[in-house]
């Protein structure tokens, strides 16, 4: 019994060994065939090489930019909401009356919503700022409360941010972003001095830390003043405020939104069934939205690139047909010495797959090289090739070899041995 088992095991091992040998031989034949037709093989795989290079590079770029954007969005905090008034678009709510959002609303939310930890009104004005002879036009003035600094991470590193007293007294004080110093042709010594905003004198109390730019917008080109002061300058916004608030924790963001919605609906006397007359924009939803868009863009680009992969695959099919015709006699000989159809099939399939995966390998290498070259640019965001794109590219090139190699290989396999041997 044991002897028989051993015998079987040995036979099996022998068979396994010779099968491995045959596959090794197929791969060796494939490489020598490719090497014998270097120029033709290179031209054939060029399509695959280009397609895979494009996949690797494009995915790395899209993912790199995407990560950068998503990090920025995340940096804003995923527990934040922006609330603004909003005229409902559906007919039922038409003529609800003038839509308002005022300080009363904001104070009510601040007082009654347990899951909202920070809140600030946000009054946006674009106006001219001047200091001595220097003048800067179209500057974004943000009218906010002192809580804005912790919600949006704007901290003063010279002087101080304005405090609750300044807000309460509607003081004419401001903090400046670093870019403003350049625009106003001054330096940090401006702290304590006065600048002109919309013809009013504002005392500079602090300079903000550098934040850099995001999506082409210089975040340091800003002036912040107490919202109460801003409303004095721009009384039209008193009834149409927007506010920024932060939930005490990311996991309470839904509760916080629910609470503020209930409070505002109650204050605005909205009966059930009528749409909100305000809009809540959540940072975490924006992030989700953004991730969706990013996936869509990646998929779209990958789709476009796949077309070139198909073209590359057709090239391989073409050259494999040529190879089968050229080597008809060899096929006949192989059959006459005992090759079965499946042996010939696997030989030519192996050749197509070796061709396409070699192209894929070169493409992956080139993709890495291009990604590295791109990352050398000083203004480039951090990019790296994700492993899944390498796996995808390798899988695709393997698949292309299989798919486009099967027909020529099949043609070779079903050749009649006599006809093949007589072929000249």
């Amino acid at each position: 019994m044991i002897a028989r088992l051993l015998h079987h095991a040995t036979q099996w091992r022998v068979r396994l060994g010779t099968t491995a040998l045959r596959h090794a031989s197929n791969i060796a034949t494939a490489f020598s065939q490719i090497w014998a037709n270097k120029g033709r093989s290179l031209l054939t795989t060029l399509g695959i090489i280009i397609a895979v290079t494009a996949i690797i590079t494009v995915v790395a770029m899209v993912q790199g930019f995407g990560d950068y954007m998503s990090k920025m969005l995340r940096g804003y905090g995923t527990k934040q909401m922006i609330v603004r008034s909003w005229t409902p678009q559906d007919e039922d709510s038409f003529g609800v009356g003038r839509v308002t959002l005022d300080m009363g609303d904001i104070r009510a939310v601040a007082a009654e919503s347990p899951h909202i930890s920070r809140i600030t009104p946000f009054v946006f004005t674009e106006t001219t700022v001047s200091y001595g002879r220097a003048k800067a036009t179209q500057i974004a003035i943000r009218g906010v409360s002192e809580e804005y600094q912790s919600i949006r991470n704007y901290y003063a590193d010279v002087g101080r941010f304005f405090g609750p007293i300044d807000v309460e007294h509607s003081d004419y004080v401001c903090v400046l972003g670093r870019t403003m110093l350049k625009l106003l042709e001054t330096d940090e010594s401006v702290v304590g001095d006065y600048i002109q905003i919309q013809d009013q004198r504002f005392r500079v109390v602090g300079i903000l830390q550098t934040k850099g730019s995001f999506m082409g917008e210089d975040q340091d080109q800003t002036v912040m003043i107490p919202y109460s002061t801003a409303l004095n300058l721009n009384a039209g916004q008193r009834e149409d405020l927007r506010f920024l608030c932060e939930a005490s924790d990311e996991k309470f963001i839904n509760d916080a939104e629910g609470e503020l919605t209930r409070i505002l609906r109650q204050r605005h006397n909205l009966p059930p069934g009528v749409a909100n007359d305000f809009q809540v924009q959540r940072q975490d939803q924006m992030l989700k939205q953004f991730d969706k868009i990013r996936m869509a863009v990646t998929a779209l680009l990958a789709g476009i690139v796949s077309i070139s992969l198909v073209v590359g695959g057709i090239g391989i099919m073409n050259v494999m047909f040529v190879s089968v015709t050229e080597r008809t006699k060899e096929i006949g000989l192989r059959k006459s010495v005992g090759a079965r159809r499946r042996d010939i099939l696997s030989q030519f399939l192996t050749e197509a797959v070796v061709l396409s995966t070699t192209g894929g390998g070169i493409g992956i290498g080139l993709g890495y090289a291009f990604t590295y070259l791109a990352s050398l640019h000083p203004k480039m965001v951090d990019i790296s090739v994700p492993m899944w794109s390498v796996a995808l590219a390798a899988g695709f090139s393997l698949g292309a070899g299989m798919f486009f190699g099967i027909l020529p290989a099949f043609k070779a396999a079903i050749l009649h041995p006599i006809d093949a041997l007589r072929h000249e």
Partner: protein
Amino acid sequence: MNIDNRKKLIELRNLRKIYRVGTELVHALRGVTLSIHENEFVAIMGPSGSGKSTLMNILGCLDVPTEGDYLLAGEDVAKLSQSGLARIRGRQIGFVFQNFELLPRMTALKNVQLPLMYSQLPKSRQRAIAALEMVGLADRAKHRPNQLSGGQRQRVAIARALAQQPAIILADEPTGNLDTKTGNEIMAVFDMLHGAGQTIIIVTHEPDIAMRCKRVITLRDGLVSSDTVPSEGLESVESHRIAS
């Protein structure tokens, strides 16, 4: 020498092969009946169109008969599938072709190993070297066909045919592309193999080659027209067989 004591290797019974060329039917073989025993050294002769190529293709399991039986070592070949035929070609038959048919990019050794790869026999390298030794080319194992002379190439091809230790070596005009001297060398190799117990069938149209075999079967118009032993003049081999 009584050949009937030996095992019957090939038995053809009323073998017919009909080809369709366009709308016409070509009767290549019209009922061939013959037996070949172990360790016979047979020449198959005949003018072109006599059906000798067709017969060789069928004997070599490259083709199947339209009608009739072909028993190879007791196995009915006509009933085999494509892969069954491939197995027979690999294990039972060693082909030698007129123009050698060596794969140019492989060394002599790799060429000889080729059938062993398909039959999955173990120790293919040792077997291939042994086969090259038998034809006296062990020292050329690492050479490629283009580094070998015509005679050497044909010997590599014979080694390839031998590697599997097949029941039959089937040679199709093996000296056709060689000069007389080299042709004689190749025939000497076949003589030696025959002496070692190998069954050999040579298809040829050269009487000189046929005369060196131990039995000559001549085909004409798809039928066996004569079956003789050259050394015994015109005496028919059939008479021996009928006697048994």
